């Protein structure tokens, strides 16, 4: 149960980070923190006191891989943005209206 609470805290921290930070790398860290929180929630719900449900394990394995893929993808975006603006500050990308 405590890990479920921790997972929720992680998700909130991640959303806070994305909402307030301007550095694109920080934003990606925020996404990864949310991802970790969701995974933690899955595993903590799969635990019945004696053993863990293998279904949740397989879900989380794939989810970790997906999280890593998203991170790699987002970092590629940062590279491209950096090539154009010379900065990893998301505020430089504010020509679009958020």
């Amino acid at each position, binding site marked *: 149960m*405590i890990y479920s609470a*921790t997972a929720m805290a992680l998700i909130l921290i991640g959303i806070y980070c994305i909402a307030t930070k301007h550095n694109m*790398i920080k934003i990606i*860290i925020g996404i*990864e923190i949310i991802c970790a929180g969701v995974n933690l929630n899955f*595993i903590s719900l799969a635990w019945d006191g004696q*053993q*863990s449900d293998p279904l949740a*394990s397989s879900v989380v394995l794939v989810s970790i891989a997906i999280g890593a893929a998203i991170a790699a993808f987002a970092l590629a975006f940062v590279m491209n943005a950096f090539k154009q603006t010379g900065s990893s500050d998301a505020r430089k990308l504010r020509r679009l209206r958020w």
Partner: protein
Amino acid sequence: MPYPELLEYAISLLIIASAIVAIEVRDLVRTAISFSIMSIAIAIAFYMLGAPYVSAFQLAVNAGAVTVLFLALLHVIQKRRRS
């Protein structure tokens, strides 16, 4: 209860604390390292929750590969900025 409750609290605290450090610290390298610590702590939590394979995968991918990816990107950016 197979594990003492105190340890669970300690690990939760470590996870949350390192997450907060990761987003609040200004130096991006420290952010990446802090993120790695958080991942390791989560891996321990996975192990305690009876999912050893997931724990190992978490260590390898999140604490390892993703952190290395971040550090590599930071390296590239700093090198470009200097030149």
